[in-house]
């Protein structure tokens, strides 16, 4: 399969009046189409920075990022970014939140509306179309945020700790939801997480980063039956083996 995303020797230095911070150093890895790659690493090692760079909202100090063989210079519609917080606009109802990106791109065609509607329906939010975000639970809001991202039909989804604001039970449920949504919409995804269990449950591959400046410590290919849901993966012996390996790497 072809590389959808290639990251080559990426460096990033943050500048502030008092100091400079090297967040990333010699970072190299790639993501193939259809993969679900998780990035784990100590706090402050530059995980969010990587996503910002891929999303084109930050420019690298040196090195390059190729997306479908093109260098990323600015945000592109090939990439959808889901933040830690759902960032729903409280003054817009669910339908308007979901179609925000389409409106921005002036592509609110009947076809796209139909797609948005079908996503809402498929993921159990159709009846909330005209509700306001404040009337939804945390898990529902997170699903709305995902659908908002999917509406623009990105090839690559960037997820920055999208479940960390949820309580444990909801988190497990939403992980299954999101995983099945991403699978059935045939998306490629890069997930940043603190939660090693979450990374093992959801990904096909895990990139373990060193502490700052972030660089690849190890890449672990996970060998699970693709039909397994994240929840069911947790029941396997392998699961704990992977956990121990990653835990060891992070010490």
């Amino acid at each position, binding site marked *: 399969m072809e590389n959808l995303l290639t990251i080559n020797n990426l460096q990033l230095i943050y500048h502030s009046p008092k100091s400079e911070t090297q967040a990333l150093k010699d970072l190299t890895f790639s993501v193939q189409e259809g993969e679900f790659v998780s990035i784990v690493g100590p706090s402050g090692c530059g995980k969010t920075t990587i996503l910002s760079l891929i999303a084109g*909202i930050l420019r690298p100090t040196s090195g390059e990022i190729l997306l479908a063989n093109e260098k990323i210079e600015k945000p592109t519609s090939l990439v959808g970014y889901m933040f830690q917080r759902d960032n729903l606009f409280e003054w817009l109802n669910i339908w308007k939140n979901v179609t925000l990106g389409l409106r921005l791109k002036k592509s609110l065609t009947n076809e796209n509306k139909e797609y948005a509607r079908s996503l809402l329906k498929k993921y159990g939010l159709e009846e909330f179309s005209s509700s306001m975000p404040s009337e939804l639970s945390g898990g529902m809001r997170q699903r709305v945020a995902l659908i908002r991202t999917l509406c623009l039909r990105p090839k690559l989804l960037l997820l920055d700790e999208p479940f960390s604001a949820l309580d444990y039970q909801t988190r497990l449920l939403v992980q299954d939801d999101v995983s099945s949504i991403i699978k059935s919409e045939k998306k490629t995804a890069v997930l940043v997480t603190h939660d090693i269990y979450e990374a093992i449950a959801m990904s096909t591959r895990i990139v373990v980063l060193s502490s700052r400046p972030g660089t690849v410590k190890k890449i672990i290919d996970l060998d699970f039956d693709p039909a397994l849901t994240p929840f069911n993966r947790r029941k396997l012996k392998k699961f704990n083996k992977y956990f121990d390996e990653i835990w060891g790497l992070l010490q």
Partner: protein
Amino acid sequence: MKKYSLSHKRYLRNLYLKDFFTHLVRVLLLLAIIGLWELSASKNWADPFITSSPSRVVKQLVALISNGSLWHHSWVTLYETLLAFGISTLLGTGVALILYLLPFMRRVLEPYLIVLNALPKIALGPLIIVWVGTGTKAIVVMGILICIVITTISMLSGYLSVEKEKILLMKTMGASPLQILFRLIIPASFPDFISVLKINVGMSFVGTIMGEYLTSKAGLGYLIVYGGQVFKLDLVMSAIVVLCLMATLMYALVALLEKCVKRR
């Protein structure tokens, strides 16, 4: 109708009673103040010539209504206040927007804003009169000066407090700077706008009355100054009562606007 449990019914009943009691005490308090005021005047505990009294205020108001001057003075003050309110809100919101969009200018002007905010605007009174002349114009300018700085500062901090992540989100969805402005910054700072309106209701009255103290031939501020000078405290009190009513009404209108927009 939903069927509630006994404890919930009791809870609702208590809630209702508490609410009722609050209103009751409020009204009683007002009546008590008025009653005590009237009593102290009639028993000559305090000299009604200085403290006036409710019955005198009513008499004064009736007189003002019957010779038509109440409408005239109230209208003059209301007109000046609305002008100052409207112009300063629009200008302040606009200036804040420009400062928001031009970070360099914002940094340069920041200390000036702070000084302007701290400056007691009444000190500019004589300048205003020399520059724009006496009368309505000077009064409205005074009102604007009082409202505009705080409007600018509040709106600017409203725009600036829009979450960075939401701006980034818009960018990742390919939004242009104008789209970010109109679809995010402005709607997100609407609550700040409403609170600015609420502040400005009070401030624009302050400005207008101060302006009228400074230079006027009509208006409630004029009545108050005039009443004070000729020791007609009934007149002063009547004007203050009318002022209270007008400010309350305007505040209620803003609150109504807020409700309407929120429900949409």
